[in-house]
């Protein structure tokens, strides 16, 4: 097996101590951790560090980058870009976690069930998936915001509903491949319950696929929440939120670009960091398994 890994990895191998302890010297891994760490700190303490981030201050609107006291300038309501970006971390980062996880949980449940049971269960679940895939986001968003007002958490629920068909299909495809394999047959012969087969055995094998998907979904969920603002059915005004800032800042894009560009870069950085971290974990796990 050692030779296999040597062939597979066309480069260097990092020495591993024991499975489960990941020690990478990779730069990307460390960088990702740093970015995520900073984001988490901002999310937890942002409101404490900058309690007045969302206070409207008409006397200092659209100050440019480098103004005294405002490193990245201010936006149209006089709010400091640095302050509101830090304070906005919590709102931006939390919702997408719930969306990605929620969608994955539902998708895994339905996908495994569809693939494992087959026949009519699969048929029904697949048609349900097709139906959800076809629902126009703008209509649902409008109705939700019409009924519940501009609510952050209802937007989260909406996006979970819109995202889970994708996860269901992916899990289903991944599981179907596995389902004909001997270990499944073996499990059946051992008269293991279907739930045990699905959740203890199948799930482990499709997990790498799921994990990649989960991280991508996280990035996508951040985007989707800002897309709702773009479509004009946005989440609550005045709350610090990178997606909201990104969209709001477009009006002054050519006067103080930092108002839009700063949150955009933050979104990209965090999404990248999360995904690259996942890659590193994937690779490390693979190394460990190979040993």
């Amino acid at each position: 097996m050692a030779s296999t890994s040597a062939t597979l990895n066309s480069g260097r191998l990092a020495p591993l101590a024991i499975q489960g302890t990941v020690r990478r010297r990779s730069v990307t891994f460390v960088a990702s951790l740093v970015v995520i760490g900073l984001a988490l700190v901002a999310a937890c303490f942002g409101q404490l560090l900058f309690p007045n981030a969302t206070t409207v201050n008409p006397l200092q609107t659209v100050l440019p980058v480098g103004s005294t006291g405002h490193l990245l300038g201010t936006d149209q309501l006089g709010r400091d870009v640095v302050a509101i970006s830090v304070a906005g971390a919590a709102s931006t980062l939390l919702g997408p976690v719930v969306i990605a996880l929620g969608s994955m949980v539902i998708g895994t449940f339905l996908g495994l069930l569809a693939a494992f049971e087959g026949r009519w269960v699969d048929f029904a679940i697949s048609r349900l998936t097709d139906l959800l895939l076809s629902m126009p986001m703008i209509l649902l968003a409008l109705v939700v915001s019409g009924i519940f007002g501009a609510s952050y958490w209802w937007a989260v629920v909406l996006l979970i509903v819109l995202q889970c068909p994708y996860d269901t299909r992916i899990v289903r495809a991944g599981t179907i491949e596995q389902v004909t394999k001997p270990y499944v047959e073996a499990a059946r012969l051992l008269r293991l319950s279907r739930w045990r087969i699905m959740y203890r055995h199948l799930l482990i094998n499709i997990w790498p696929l799921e994990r990649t998907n989960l991280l991508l979904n996280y990035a996508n969920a951040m985007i989707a929440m800002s897309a709702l603002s773009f479509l004009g059915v946005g989440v609550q005004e005045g709350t610090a939120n990178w997606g909201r800032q990104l969209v709001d800042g477009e009006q002054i894009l050519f006067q103080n670009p930092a108002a839009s560009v700063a949150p955009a870069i933050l979104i990209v950085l965090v999404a990248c960091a999360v995904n690259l971290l996942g890659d590193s974990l994937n690779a490390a796990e693979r190394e460990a398994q190979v040993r």
Partner: protein
Amino acid sequence: MSAEATTVAWAPAAALSASDSGKGASGAGSVEEVGVPRKRSLAEALARIILLRTAGSVVMLLVISVLIFLLTYLSPGNIITNLTGLHPPTPAVAAALRREYGLNQPLVVQYLHWLDRFVHGNWGRSMRDQTSVSQLFAGRVGVTLALVGLGFAMAVLASVPLGVIAARRAGGMLDRTISAVSVVGLSAPAFATGLLLLYVFAYLVSAFPPAGAGQGLFDDLDHLALPAATLAIGVGAYIVRLTRTAMRRELGSDYVVFARARGVSERRLTFVALRNAAIPVLTMAGLVLSYLVGATILVESTFSLPGLGLLLQESVEFKDFAVVQFLALFIAAVIAAIMLLVDLSYLVLSPEWRQRLRR
């Protein structure tokens, strides 16, 4: 437990399926009895699938039409105000409008009237533009289909090879770069990416026009290049990463190791591995296409393309029911067709699926 999973996870997929295909093994499901399983010819099975799916999709479309009807009714706003603008209509005018659009009837009746007309080919009229829905649709479907087609083609043509390369050079610099770049593309919202592309290619470099759909084929392509690229960048990452993950798994399989040891060329191996990795890749491609069909709105908005996405948004906001209904059903039908094609392609490519089918 994990040991069990570990050992069987590496079971060579190709080897297994070769040995199983002739036997009609019972596969997944609850069939417990042992005996001579029914065998179906492939053609019969395919026909059965297509028929069932079509029937199922029709039912689904019906359900969707009811949902859309209810949602449009529930959405905020008032169709009479939308029709008359900011003027309070005189009671006579308001009453006349209600009668004309059948707004006084109970919801169920309104729905059934719509359904009756719809299945007889009368798709209705836009209250907003005063054009027939079919005309409105015909005028705009071309732009969206071209946009989606071009965007999808760009995404696949760029992403699949990149995913393969990343898998083959896993762990190396190239792999990391490809992964990072693809995630960047994925993490920026489409309107931000679009704006960036506009800034660079329509302003700094003046290579492409900033808005509109163009006249004539080459002008069209010129106008669609940037929007399609925006779409492709947004979804390409998914294809890159999933291709990579799936390929990695295949390339790490025993059969690949054995084949390599026997001296089979890397290129051949890549093809075989890709074929086996095709299932998740195809799934993703299908999902990406479905996503694009419904999600062109952000790009159409940024580039002012007169397509179905913008039309849907405007009609939803206006509560222009006939248009919303038609577009929603069109999108649903297209997505159902795409999913069917993807599932059929699974059969072509994968013995496990064929096997499952023949149960």
